[in-house]
């Protein structure tokens, strides 16, 4: 009988890591250099950056250095355009809610956004703002002119994600930004780049979005930290009120260790992007190729540009719930739809927006590869997944 205490249980769980982790879109392991950079701050080097004494100054210096490094890495002209947040969701809330309330206007977004954006838009709608949700095509792509046509003089913010977290489908964000500006040059353009940052060029280009959300833990940083790029001059009402940190845009004592880790993760991710695209793309392509030659499988949004990390697949006739449990037994970690608080699978609003029927949606699974994977990982994954799928067919 195993009835060890919690510490012992946690140790056992650490030993039981899945043989094949294919859920990097949910979260990916921290890079070793990130942990090394954070370690001193978790062990002795403390300090609240908001104080006036030497200890506080040391902490303040660390977060400002992190801010500068991130700004340089993404091509921001002013380090103060980087606002540290408690993660991607908080960055999305600050962008969408903050921009709409800050200028007293409405919001335009798409039907396939992450809940952090969609629920923020619904909140705006509940408090009386105009909110428009632009539909997508069967491949999950939004048409830039459809977005621009929805924008009017009262639009404060337009939010279109860089790439979708479930399907990996890439949106034409640069084109959206261009057309939105010609429709209303005062509207702020936001993009949730949380899922895309590790593989796509995301920069503070003057022609690109005014607001960009990034999360650390999707790119090898720690959980619970992220940033919002806020172009100089963009007026945001804070969503977290308090002591006025981050120029009043995000109150709360800084998580110094996490911010230091975030900066290292951003630098490493950007430096490693081209290798990532090649290597992870090879893993994903081999995985899909081998599966298609062995079992009955459909690739979601096959005709669209997708992130190289994502393989969103449907195995006709096999419920995702059953397949995920059987894959877990086989040591393969994958995901379906969105997990709710209880852990049950919820229907995907992304697939619904693409016109996928509820039966088809309930047979869909996301596999997502990480920076250490390559073609051999893809082949091994296809071999195990094919075996389980055949057993269930």
């Amino acid at each position, binding site marked *: *009988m*195993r*009835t060890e205490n919690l510490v012992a*249980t946690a140790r*056992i*769980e650490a030993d039981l890591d899945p043989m094949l982790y294919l859920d990097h879109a949910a979260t990916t392991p921290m890079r070793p250099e990130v942990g090394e950079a954070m370690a001193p701050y978790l062990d002795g080097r403390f300090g609240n950056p908001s104080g006036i004494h030497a200890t506080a100054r040391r902490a303040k210096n660390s977060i400002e250095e992190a801010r500068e490094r991130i700004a340089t890495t993404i091509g921001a002209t002013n380090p103060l355009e980087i606002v540290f947040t408690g993660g991607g969701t908080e960055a999305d809330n600050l962008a969408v809610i903050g921009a709409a309330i800050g200028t007293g206007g409405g919001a335009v977004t798409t039907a396939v956004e992450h809940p952090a954006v969609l629920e923020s838009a619904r909140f705006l709608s509940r408090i009386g703002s105009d909110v428009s949700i632009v539909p997508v095509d069967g491949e999950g792509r939004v048409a830039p002119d459809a977005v621009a046509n929805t924008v009017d003089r009262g639009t404060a913010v337009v939010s279109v994600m860089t790439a979708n977290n479930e399907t990996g489908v890439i949106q034409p964000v640069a084109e959206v930004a261009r057309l939105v500006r010609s429709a209303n040059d005062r509207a702020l353009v936001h993009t949730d780049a949380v899922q895309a940052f590790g593989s796509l060029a995301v920069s503070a280009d003057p022609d690109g979005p005014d607001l960009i959300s990034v999360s650390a833990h999707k790119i090898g940083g720690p959980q619970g930290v992220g940033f919002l790029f806020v172009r100089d001059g963009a007026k945001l009402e804070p969503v977290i009120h308090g002591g006025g940190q981050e120029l009043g845009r995000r109150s709360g004592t800084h998580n110094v260790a996490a911010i230091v880790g975030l900066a290292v993760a951003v630098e490493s991710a950007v430096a490693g992007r081209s290798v990532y695209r090649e290597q992870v793309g090879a893993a994903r392509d081999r995985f899909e190729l081998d599966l298609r030659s062995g079992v009955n499988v459909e690739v979601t949004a096959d005709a669209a540009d997708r992130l190289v990390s994502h393989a969103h697949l449907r195995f006709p006739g096999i419920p995702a*719930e*059953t397949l995920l*449990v*059987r894959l*877990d*037994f086989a040591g393969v970690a994958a995901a379906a739809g969105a997990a*709710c*608080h*209880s*852990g*049950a*699978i*919820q229907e995907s609003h992304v697939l619904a927006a693409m016109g996928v029927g509820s039966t088809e949606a309930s047979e869909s699974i996301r596999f997502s590869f990480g920076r250490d994977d390559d073609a051999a990982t893809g082949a091994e994954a296809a071999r195990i997944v094919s075996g389980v799928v055949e*057993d*269930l067919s």
Partner: protein
Amino acid sequence: MRALVAMSGGVDSSVAAALMIEAGYDVVGVTLKQWVGAGGEMPTAGCCTVSDAEDARRVAAQLDIPYYVLDYVDEFTAAVVEPFGAAYLAGRTPNPCIECNRKVRFSALLERTAELDADVLVTGHHARISYDDAGWHLLRAVDGTKDQSYVLHMLGQEELSRIRLPVGEMTKVEVRERAAAMGLRTASKPDSQDICFVASGDYRDFLAQQLPETALPGPVVDTGGTILGEHDGITGFTIGQRRGLGIAVGEARYVVDVQPDERRVVVGTYDEMLAHGCVVSGLSFVSGTPPDDPNVSVKVRYRTSAIAASLHPVGERWTVRFGERQPAPAPGQAAVFYDGDRVLGGGTIEEVIRE
């Protein structure tokens, strides 16, 4: 051998999982998500709540077994919740636990058990399963006060061969002692009494919300048709009920009949309420065939003792004749037949026989 354990977050299924590990099985814990609130989340009050699932998850972590929440909301709604409302509208008194066992736990989940490559499905029910030359048997629990064999009467040979009920061999006190000895967080968690999808604890509130027509008033009449008063919805009345009739007459009165078409509740004396037997539909027998001896004992509600009765097949429906007159059973409840501790089978009560 792999065992799938349905974990509700209570002490019985927690111990059931631990006992299966001891028995050498690869144990997998699952919680069924059966019912959601308007926001699509699991309920926060009643039983089978988010916090119950959290207890199950924590126990599974403590036992170091995989754990999953499986979505049975559509199946549960169609098989249990919708018929629950429909039965009350028809003046009946449904037993949702029986319908859940019949159509969700021991059918849909049992099918899933095989798909998940598990050999047996395990629950924390208090009842026993045994096997001998005659086949599989379903028996009352060791702890008579906790016996749940009544709500499992629909199980047949095929189901029983793939189900294990390890805590049925223990008293509730022993179950709690085992849980405490193993340090399981659910050791002293109170038993749940409520209908799992009724968060408020009062099924009439639930019905009034889901089916407003169940809360329409109607007359309370005596067996001669004289109006004695008014009620605020037939769903508050079950045949045999004495309390809460809302009428003031000298002698004690009991519900004799509920007539949904006229929304009429008929009350009468104790003698008028008594029944000679009942008509039962949808019969099933544990062995697969009816007993040779028509003389059995029968339980017509969960919380009563079994009484002597005889069974008479009349086509699809069977007649159950009580040895002596009994407080009338409520249509919609189950009549479950026993031979001593052994469950023979059962069915749904359709009508009361008074002559």
